[in-house]
């Protein structure tokens, strides 16, 4: 299969890559650009571990073709911290022990950031339904939801 040349923006930086039309955006991020923060848990859009932002929309990167990134803006977990400062969500996930194995954590953080960017004061129920597309098997979700609510409060505070 002939490869396409794609120019796009990832975490604010211009990026070029070659990929076959069959490669998903997740395949490109991980196996072409070596951004392995986004994880493959199912490759069918059912686990959310590959969540990224595409033109400001939260999506599963396993259900987007790499060639569809042409001219679009992508944000991954690797872009969430700024310099040496973690994003409040990243800090609260650590403080609340909201992760154990951590393989679902990048997807949860990207999804939670997408939530707080549009709804700075969500209820517990709103957090739980927004994050229902991110599966976690270790934590039972309790500390994840608490970390998101705590981060929201802190971000509203300052």
């Amino acid at each position, binding site marked *: 299969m002939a490869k396409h040349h794609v120019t796009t923006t990832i975490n604010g930086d211009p990026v070029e890559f070659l990929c076959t039309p069959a490669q998903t955006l997740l395949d490109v991020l991980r196996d072409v650009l070596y951004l392995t923060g986004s994880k493959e848990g199912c490759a069918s859009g059912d686990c959310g571990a590959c969540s990224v932002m595409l033109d400001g*929309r939260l999506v599963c990167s396993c259900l987007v073709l790499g060639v569809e990134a042409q001219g679009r803006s992508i944000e991954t977990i690797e872009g969430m911290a700024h310099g040496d400062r973690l994003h409040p969500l990243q800090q609260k996930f650590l403080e609340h022990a909201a992760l154990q194995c951590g393989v679902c954590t990048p997807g949860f953080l990207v*999804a939670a950031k997408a939530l707080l960017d549009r709804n700075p004061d969500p209820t517990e129920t709103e957090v739980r339904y927004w994050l229902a597309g991110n599966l976690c098997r270790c934590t039972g979700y309790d500390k994840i939801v608490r970390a998101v609510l705590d981060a929201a409060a802190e971000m509203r505070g300052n």
Partner: protein
Amino acid sequence: MDYRSPGTVKEAVDLLAAHNGAAHVLAGGTDLLVKLRAGVVAPELVVDLKAIPQLRGIAADANGFRIGAATSCAEIGEHAALAAAWPGVVEALQLIGSTQIQGRASLGGNLCNASPAADSVPALIAAGAVCEVAGPGGERQVPVEKIVTGPGKTSLARGEFVVGFRLPKPRARSGDAYLRLIPRTEMDIAVVGVGVAMTLDAAGVCTHARVGLGAVAPTPLLVEDAAKALIGTRVDAAALAALAAATSAACKPIDDKRGTVAYRIKVAGVLARRTAQTALERARGSTTKATGR
């Protein structure tokens, strides 16, 4: 497999015609990419429709709304006027998959993937939505309930694709709602899905009703008998019981990994009643969100 992203409907139609059935259209991709990965489909060419203006965005005018077939459900859900006019339709399309799926999934894809359990379709049927279809023979209008002909099969001719959806302006004292039964609270494919739309007269008698039913037959269904059970009544307990019975009667379900025949038949009636109650409240003017998801 190759990939093209045409800028006009004509360009897309020509591309599809040139590949004589071996090309596949792409809108959100949340169904197509799963099939590609599983090897269920192996097209020579994927034609991405998202760069074509007619397939994007939502327009409101005097006689209703027009939704681009490739518009994401997340975007549609944010359209206040549409959500106010057709809360049931918006509810239904916002139940498709997860937040991440909502960021991509489109009404065109949800309909043309032709799953009997597609969430948006029963509500679109109840709302009386009509598709704008483009193809080698030009454009035509097709009521939503006429598109799906069986699991994975549609009435579209080779090289045709859905460009948009037209929703009428709701009559006064109208309300619609959608409910589905899934084992979990999110992420599942509907075991049963029911869309109800109704209009009341000044005295509170139901003058118009449409009932759409999903996941209980090879195709989504427009259930005339269920509508008849409501029309002419005050949608009281007796009418709701008749609605439930008519809805259950229309079911031709199968046993599968999601539910049994008996289960689907019974729950279809239960959901029809609950959905109709919410549609009724909306028609009477109280803006309640459908209970449960």
